[in-house]
């Protein structure tokens, strides 16, 4: 805090006046009620966490506060005055700005233009002055320690992490009173930069609403939390007074089992590897070799952009390697498309990174989404009925503890967590013996995570092989039998069994120490 002596009291008074408070918010989309009864109060200069499972109504609450949608009922006050923004711009005008989870940057405009939208500085003739846009954009980037980003670069061509930072910077620039950060760390491998920024804005008396699934982060930066469940605000608590277990219980509605996993010893080395990767290069990967044995869960740990995406896409048949070979069950495999990958040997099933754009088929039912790869198996003479689909999807859905009722719904109407469950169920339903899971629990709540972990373990115990990448190291620690740390497109270190520890992984993924364990 940089506030000095006598200014502090005055600042506190102002801060209290600037607090945002919402009561009894309700919002329904047609028949779907997204938010039933939500109350929340933000205090200026402090970071308030919003916790809840996917589909609890967090996004809707954010959209209401942002002015993107209007509530059906309830009231909001901002600094004591009624607050009912009719648009995003109106909300910004009142000092409330949001960094969205699904980034809201326009891909074909430049960084500077995105930062300044919609009020771009004008030059003579009333036209946009590209020079001033670039200057002002560069200024903003510099202010937030992002000088390395070219303000004239097209946003769509930047890596995801940089886009996330730009999104956050833009929100900060517009947040005079309230800053809303929706999953700001989803694409960020480390939080130092972000937390610096947050501390800077709270020092200026801005209230921050922080939404994240990562409780460790929340504990680090937030002082209070509101828990949403099923569209209701269940409780508001001071974080120092609540244990993780309490919070999980409020979120999920039951105690979460956090017992350490029992590692099954890897099978004898003599067996043929289910998947053998030899000297694979291309798409950011440089000469990577490893083998995956039956019954093994292999974790990949890496910072953003170390070639893990390329590896998965090449294995899934979505990208063509520059060099190298992939063997399945000992014989070379031609992976020309995901369909071919599914049908090579004992099969490779891929869970894509982006749930929305590569995963779900929004208009179709969850059951169809689950059984799509194996439709021909569940169809009699090419004819398939919705009932047959439900029956076929049932067993796989049960493995990820997905409520059967949801199978009949359009998957686009389900919460993110249930969508992810359906997608995992899909990889299980394919019957493939090897699963390629890219960040299987991205943006998923604690309860869903546990179900997914259980499903993965059960799959491995039945003799299946799993290779997964996770952006969260604890997940790797908890789930993997063996772990590869990628750095610069190469396997930098390998850990096995109890050697997989968070501290060791952190150094390895940064390219320090280690060597082959």
């Amino acid at each position, binding site marked *: 805090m940089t506030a000095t002596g006598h200014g502090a009291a005055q600042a506190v008074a102002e801060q209290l006046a600037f607090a945002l408070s919402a009561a009894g918010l309700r919002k*329904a*989309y*047609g*028949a*779907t*009620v*997204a938010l*039933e*009864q939500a*109350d929340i*109060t933000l205090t200026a200069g402090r970071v308030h966490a919003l916790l809840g499972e996917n589909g609890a109504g967090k996004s809707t609450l954010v959209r209401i506060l942002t002015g993107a949608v209007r509530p059906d009922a309830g009231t909001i006050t901002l600094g004591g005055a009624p607050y009912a923004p009719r648009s995003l711009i109106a909300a910004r005008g009142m000092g409330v700005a949001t960094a969205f989870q699904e980034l809201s940057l326009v891909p074909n405009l430049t960084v500077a233009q995105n930062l300044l939208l919609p009020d771009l500085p004008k030059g003579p003739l009333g036209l946009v002055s590209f020079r001033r846009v670039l200057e002002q954009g560069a200024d903003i980037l510099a202010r937030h320690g992002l000088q390395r980003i070219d303000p004239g670069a097209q946003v769509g061509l930047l890596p995801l992490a940089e886009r996330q930072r730009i999104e956050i910077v833009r929100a900060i620039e517009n947040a005079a009173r309230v800053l809303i950060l929706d999953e700001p760390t989803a694409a960020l491998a480390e939080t130092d930069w972000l937390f610096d920024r947050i501390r800077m804005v709270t020092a200026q008396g801005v209230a921050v609403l922080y939404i994240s699934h990562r409780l460790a982060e929340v504990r680090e930066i937030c002082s209070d939390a509101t828990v949403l*469940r*099923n*569209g*209701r*605000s*269940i*409780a*508001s*608590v001071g974080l120092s007074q609540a244990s993780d277990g*309490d919070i999980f*219980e*409020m979120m999920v*509605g*039951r105690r979460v089992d956090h017992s350490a996993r029992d590692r099954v010893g890897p099978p004898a080395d003599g067996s043929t590897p289910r998947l053998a990767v030899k000297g694979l290069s291309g798409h950011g990967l440089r000469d990577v070799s490893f083998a995956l044995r039956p019954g093994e869960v292999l974790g990949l740990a890496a910072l953003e952009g170390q070639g893990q995406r390329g590896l998965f896409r090449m294995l*899934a048949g*979505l990208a063509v390697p520059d060099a190298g070979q992939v063997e399945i069950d000992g014989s070379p495999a031609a992976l020309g*498309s*995901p*369909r071919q990958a*599914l049908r090579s040997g004992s099969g490779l099933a*891929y869970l*894509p990174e982006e749930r929305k*754009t*590569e*995963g*779900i*088929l*929004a*208009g*179709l039912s969850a059951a*169809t*989404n689950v059984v*799509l*790869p194996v*439709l*021909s198996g569940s*169809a009699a003479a*090419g*004819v*398939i*009925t919705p009932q047959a689909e439900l029956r076929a999807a049932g067993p796989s859905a049960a493995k990820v503890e997905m409520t059967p009722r949801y199978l009949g*719904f*359009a998957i686009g*109407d389900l919460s993110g967590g249930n969508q992810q469950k359906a997608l995992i169920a*899909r990889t299980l339903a*394919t019957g493939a013996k090897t699963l390629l899971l890219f960040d299987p629990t991205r943006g998923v709540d604690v309860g869903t995570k546990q179900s997914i972990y259980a499903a993965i373990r059960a799959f491995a115990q039945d003799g299946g092989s799993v290779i997964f990448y996770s952006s969260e190291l604890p997940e790797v620690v908890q789930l993997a039998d063996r772990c590869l740390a990628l750095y610069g497109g190469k396997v930098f270190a390998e850990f096995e069994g109890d050697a997989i520890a968070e501290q060791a992984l952190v150094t390895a993924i940064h390219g320090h120490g280690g060597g082959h364990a």
Partner: protein
Amino acid sequence: MTQKQDPQTLAQQGDTRGSAKLSRDTISAATVAVLCVLLLLSARLVSPALGSWNQVETVLVLGFFLVVLSYGQGLVILSGGLDLSLPATITLGGILATSWVGATDPGAWYLLPVVLAVCGLVGLVSGIGIVWLRVPPFIMTMAMSIIVASALLGYTDGTPRGSAPDAAVWLMKSTFAGMPTPVSVLIGFVVVGWLFQSRSIWGRYLYAIGTNLDAACIAGVPVVAMQILPYVISAICAGFVGIALVGYSSGATLRMGDDYLLPSIASVVIGGSSILGGRGTNLGTVGGAILLTTLGTIISALGMEFGLRTVIEGSIVLFALLLLREELFQKLRTVWR
């Protein structure tokens, strides 16, 4: 609700929020059907002869062409494309049927399928161009249309010869089980079409690639084949319409398909499908096609100036579109919950 509660009590609270149940597709198909019936009934006000079973039969026979055609168009749109080559392909079917087969050729039983296969080839070329050469569907099919039309012009030297195959005449002119044959065939076609689109794995695949091509590919859908397939089916449907038209009017002309392009697209969108793909049913499309034909029949009976007729026709299309709007569906679903 900010006070702290006992987690156990909280845990008892279930998810009480409702969710959408009624399918949008059901509503749009039903709406279109209701509109058709209303139109036919109100037609009695115009002329007492309208609204009779006789007129319904006329509408169904005249609507035969558009229903078959817009089924193919509907599949293409469902898969995320658009087929502008229909007029030329209709003409291709008609011309080949008259010039290769002719009235009494005993080889009609294998020649007519060959004609359909040639039409399918046009669709195949379009599909390949779209998938492999990555030409946008709009441009690819438009170019194919120009190419096929010009090839036909050259092939016929401008004059289509020959007369309608007997089989085609039988299809359009005879009666079967007390109903005109085209009506019976139409019913069969709609049932088979429904089975294919809504109850077959290929239909599912088409919905999947129309919804999200990348996701469908990752899910293991054979995307290349499935992107090409609808163009082939659509071209075969168009060829079939060409043969049927020849049977109906006993001869082919080089411009016989021209009037069907926009109505085929209109039927699909009126039937509640998304022009962007991935949503819609063929029952809706059938309804849309019949609605348009009914409308044409009634307007033609009004004896108005052609300009005014056109204005009214356009307005009713617009009205149907407004009625089938997304927001209205949301409201309906809320009310009917």
